[in-house]
């Protein structure tokens, strides 16, 4: 037997599912969201998603090159970032807008912190927030869905723009569309966030494949619904307010695809519940007092920043973590820890 044997470390069996597989599930769900816009507007949504994903890939490779590493695709999280970014811009926005947002997210938020799983903020959320702050007009001028319109896939088109229901709510008026009609994705809004039913189906898929955690989404929506019922923005019954608030804007989309991002959300169950509720409350606060019609990305960023503190708070509630003052002991034993690590 001429076998060149090598040695390796256990374990010698591994689970089939890997990080790329989980991200692939998410990316698949996001692509499912592209169907309805493609049917309605032609190939432009596909082009938008493609260019934004491509930008993410190029930015990642560029950063790796500057870092002196061999550029590698890694776990391909840029695909999810790019797709989410593309979903949150209007379909009639210029093509460079999602690219700029995705580039900001990858270059500023993701790579400097060491990539997916290390970055404390959701890159897509940061990119969209950046685009919102820099080009608010472009971000909030939506194509009027009333007349059928087929956009050119590449060129920028001058279109008749309409106010989205979220903007109408922000201005304190009642949208002229029934809440149930918001389910089918025919209202004006960001590219991938209007079809509530499809988003729900994607949510079920993600929860079933354990690519997202249900408790975060549930607590997020619960907090939003509660606040919407208690403090309606428009003069209507609490139920109507809840319907409008949950179905307008990018709330549902963020509750499924951005808040549940495993890299930036707390790991334990109670902390996840706290985190979801916090994010939902922050979102409603942004809707009431915020400056822009879409506050979801800012709320996600705030929640990401609060996540470690919430985790710590959850531990304190269960009486596991030491009080704040005891941090010194940790450093004292920390030297031992370094010895054991080295």
């Amino acid at each position, binding site marked *: 037997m001429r076998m060149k044997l090598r040695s390796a470390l256990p374990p010698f069996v591994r689970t089939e599912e890997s990080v790329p597989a989980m991200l692939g599930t998410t990316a698949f769900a996001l692509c499912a969201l592209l169907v309805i816009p493609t049917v309605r507007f032609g190939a432009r949504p596909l082009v938008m998603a493609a260019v934004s994903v491509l930008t993410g890939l190029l930015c990642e490779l560029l950063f790796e090159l500057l*870092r002196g590493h061999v550029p590698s695709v890694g776990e391909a999280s840029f695909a999810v970032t790019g797709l989410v970014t593309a979903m949150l811009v209007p379909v009639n926005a210029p093509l460079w807008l999602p690219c700029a947002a995705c580039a900001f997210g990858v270059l500023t938020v993701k790579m400097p*912190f060491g990539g997916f799983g290390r970055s404390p903020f959701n890159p897509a959320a*940061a990119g969209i927030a950046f685009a919102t702050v820099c080009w608010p007009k472009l971000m909030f001028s939506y194509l009027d869905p009333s007349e059928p319109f087929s956009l050119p896939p590449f060129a920028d088109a001058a279109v008749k723009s309409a106010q989205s229901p979220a903007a109408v709510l922000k201005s304190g008026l009642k949208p002229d569309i029934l809440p149930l009609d918001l389910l089918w994705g025919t209202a004006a809004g960001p590219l991938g966030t209007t079809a509530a039913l499809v988003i729900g189906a994607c949510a079920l898929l993600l929860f079933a494949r354990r690519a997202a955690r249900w408790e975060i989404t549930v607590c997020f929506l619960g907090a939003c619904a509660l606040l919407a019922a208690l403090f309606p923005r428009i003069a209507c019954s609490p139920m109507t307010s809840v319907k409008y608030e949950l179905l307008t804007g990018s709330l549902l989309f963020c509750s499924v695809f951005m808040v549940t991002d495993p890299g930036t959300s707390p790991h334990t169950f109670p902390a996840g519940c706290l985190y979801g509720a916090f994010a939902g409350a922050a979102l409603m606060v942004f809707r009431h007092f915020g*400056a822009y019609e879409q506050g979801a990305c800012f709320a996600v*960023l*705030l929640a990401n920043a609060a996540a*470690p*503190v919430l985790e710590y708070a959850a531990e304190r509630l269960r009486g596991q973590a030491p009080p*704040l003052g005891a*941090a010194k002991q940790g450093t004292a034993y920390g030297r031992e820890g370094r010895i054991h690590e080295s």
Partner: protein
Amino acid sequence: MFARMLTTALLAMTAESLLFSGGAGFSRVLRAARRPRSILPYSLFVTLFSLGSAGAGVLLKPHLAGDRGEFLRPAAYAAAAALMYLAAAWLLHRFAPAFYGRNEGPLALSALNTVVVAMPWVQRIFGFGLSQTVGYALGTGVSFFLASLVLSRAGKTCSNPDMPEAFSGLPAELIYVGILSLAFTGFTGGRVF
């Protein structure tokens, strides 16, 4: 009375968080975040000194009107803070030397900090009553505490083995703060407080 105090506290907290996101007194917040133990005394000092400096601002305001006042105001506030610090440090140094020895740095820096934070605030609020002053001080302390808490937890993610060596530590923290202030920009929409 108490309600007004609380409302002012809330107002101050939001304003402070915007200010921190805008960078005011940020060096001090970072300092506090580096050593989690010092967060509590730090916030305490900040509260007390804010109380003092707000009072000073109320007292000095009428004398510092007009262009000359505009010119003199920063120096006047700084001087007031310096005097307050002098008093506090002397008292502590005299009567509680151990406590003073433990919290020397925070004391001085928080005195400095309150000037930075107080000035814009006092500029805008006219006619501070006592309750509002107290509320403002409480709000400042609480928001300082929250900001330091968030940043102290953020420190762990800002230096990890996977990130580029050049970014670990302060650069990553600066970017972190930048994104945080971007999030707060969602409230103000392009205007700094």
